[in-house]
């Protein structure tokens, strides 16, 4: 006989006037190679069809299914039940607006972040379809890709002490995004331009250095290194600004 898993799942449908926030218990027999993706779908199809949660690629690539699993933000699709105790508590990510049950609105948060960080290549060059591509060192291309691997699951922000205290903190995902453009030679922005975006408490100087962002990142991004890198760069820029003013 396989193990019986006991799920404690947060339930609340803000669109339903009869709904009240509460924890609901479900029991499910464990199957071989079961992940939370498989388990939650079984619960929805067999026990409660109103259960809300998000999955998309179910392969750890898209970031849809982030939730708080036994107190820790992570991707449900790549969480194997075999690695867990039989008591499993699932909560929606904090910080983001709740859509229902385990589903939260990361989309709006990240879209605002693109606008704040101006998340695109700033260049005056115009594309010429008749020309060869501009050359780039392969090592540089790989460095850029390393920082572009973020899947915007939102775990880092949910685990962040500052983000929990203040709504305007940009969080590790945004700072990582800025770092991606800083290392890209195609982007013509200067350090002073970046300072305008992140040289304040909403950005680089708001971080308390608790390191949770990097701990929970399912892609293993070096978020703290990037933060340190930007902080040094912005610190220098801030000093230069002081001298320039004098």
């Amino acid at each position: 006989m396989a193990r019986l898993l006991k799920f404690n799942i947060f339930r609340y449908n803000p669109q339903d006037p009869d709904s009240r926030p509460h924890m609901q218990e479900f029991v499910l027999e464990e199957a071989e190679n079961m992940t939370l993706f498989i388990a939650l779908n079984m619960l929805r199809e067999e026990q409660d069809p109103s259960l809300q949660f998000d999955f998309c690629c179910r392969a750890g690539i898209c970031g849809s299914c982030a939730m708080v699993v036994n107190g820790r933000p992570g991707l449900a699709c790549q969480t194997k039940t075999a690695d867990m105790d039989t008591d499993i508590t699932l909560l929606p990510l904090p910080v983001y607006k709740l859509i229902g049950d385990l589903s939260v609105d990361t989309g709006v948060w990240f879209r605002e972040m693109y606008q704040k960080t101006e998340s695109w290549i700033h260049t005056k060059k115009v594309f010429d379809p008749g020309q060869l591509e501009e050359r780039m060192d392969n090592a540089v291309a790989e460095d850029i890709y390393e920082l572009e691997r973020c899947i915007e699951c939102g775990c880092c922000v949910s685990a962040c002490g500052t983000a929990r205290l203040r709504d305007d903190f940009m969080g590790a995902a945004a700072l990582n995004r800025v770092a991606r453009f800083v290392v890209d030679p195609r982007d013509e922005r200067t350090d002073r331009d970046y300072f305008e975006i992140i040289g304040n408490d909403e950005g680089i100087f708001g971080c308390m250095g608790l390191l949770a962002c990097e701990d929970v990142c399912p892609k293993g991004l070096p978020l703290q290194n990037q933060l340190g890198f930007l902080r040094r760069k912005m610190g220098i820029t801030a000093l230069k600004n002081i001298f320039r003013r004098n």
Partner: protein
Amino acid sequence: MQTFYSDLLVIGAGLAGERIAVEAAETGAAVTVLSIVPARRSHSSAAQGGMQAALGNCAMGKDDCPDVHFQDTVKGSDWGCDQEVARLFADTAPIEMRRLAHWGVPWNRVVPGKSFFYKGGEKFEKYEEPEKEGLITARSFGGTAKWRTCYTSDGTGHAVMCTMDNRCAELGIDVRDRSEAIALIHDGETCYGAIVRCLRTGELQAYIARATAICTGGFGRIYKATTNAVICDGGGHIIAMDTGQVPLGNPEAIQFHPTGIVPTDILVTEGCRGDGGTLLDKNEERFMHIYEPDKAELASRDVVSRWMTHHMRQGKGVESPYGQHLWLDIRHLGDQHISTKLREVDEICHHFLGIDPRTQLIPVRPTQHYTMAGIRTDRDGAAYGLKGLFSAGEAACWDMHGFNRLGGNSLAETVVAGGIVGRKVAEFLQGHDVSFRTSLVSDAVAAQEDRIKALASCRNGSESVYKVRSAMQDALMDGCFVFRTGEGLQQAVDTLKEVYERAGRVGLRSNGRGANPELAAALKIRGQVRLAQCIASAALARTESRGSHTREDHPERNDRDWLNRTLAYWKEGADVPELRYEPATYVFEIPPGDRGYGGGKIIKADEPK
């Protein structure tokens, strides 16, 4: 109810949809893009391998050019493609890759000097020329004469998707996530937009537009075993076919990927084999070179999937609780290669199989992967049957893939077709104004409200949507998988007729309020069964084997009778589709011939009956 107006409504925010949006927005059009998930979660982002474009920069791609790319594409399609479209694609692809580089894609670049690569488990040496240093490089993929697949490590789709979405943000394009189109607004001749269900609140909204583009990707989720994301459920195809005017092109053309992992069917990239990975049987022996001495593991996907299935039928498969499978071996590629160029594969092995691909074998088997089938469009991306409706990407049958798609051609298609169709949409908008009765919109909304009420109140019955869906998936797995027979297909057609009736009796068990997921599934179940029936019926009618469509009772490719494209219409009140046919291509740059791999007899076009 809220009503929104724009020049162009794009349904689907993957690469094809956003590329069209960018192109149209650059001409000054007001564009709204709808997506059921945040744009970057689109299935485009899961593509690991790369995009084909004949740049000819790397050593193994020397002397490559669009002509060779065109030939590979036509051969790969088993002469089922529209050759004018394949030509347009091959010629435009290099420009689009360079444009993506300009917008910010970190393509891997040529590193000069000596390096090693693997082919069929053997080690070879190559030399990259110094004058090519820093240009976009390429890797090998199945079915191609040259190394032509541009890539960024093994996150090409993700990297390009980020760049495209950044470009949308830069242009201020209105991308609305958690919005699902559930019906088109049309009068039987012209499309005026869509009725949309907000997946935050459950409210219905009307989006009116002068042009509408459906770019919702494939519909692999109607199969039980698929590599597709859970959002690839045919929503876009369903609303187009529901009009009764728009046909599905080549529904029988469904691709099976050789390397879905067992049991979760998550894809491991073809890059594994391209970079030198091999397929092994239960004795840990290679077998592909026996069947395909020249291409071996790098024959096209339909061929590899068939030989794998054949080999397992010969008793050479590995037994498991989930049925037979084979092994993919990338151990010899080494830690450096696996932890950089195949890192996603490494992570998938770790998270979903609990194995280390440096020392252990990966269990794989063929799995549904891609729909060459799609909303039939002309060369400009305009859908047959409704003015003002367009489609591009996997959702469309444009048709550059014919009966089998080469790896790396679909990801490239998203941006190449997106660019071309986007320009055509912009031209269309210049000369197209609409006027329509407002009752058209209110009637469309009322019809959808009524459907929702019927489902929530169990007016037509109380069948479980999940059970009906499961029955449909089983029918396709049994009758319409890698190998097909007349008998099996007839069985599938009959079963699906019953399933279709059950789909009409679905009712909700939950209350359907808010962003209710059961309602989302129930709203599309009838349409999904129609798609499944289109596959089965068209496959039963097509008495030949071409590309991925393999009839064991008709093993020959029959150019005499079947050098054509299926058009499946679903007329109101019907319980099976109406099948019509059109020539596969009106222009032959290369006449039908042998693909050079995969074997099989060909009945020539001029052969007497």
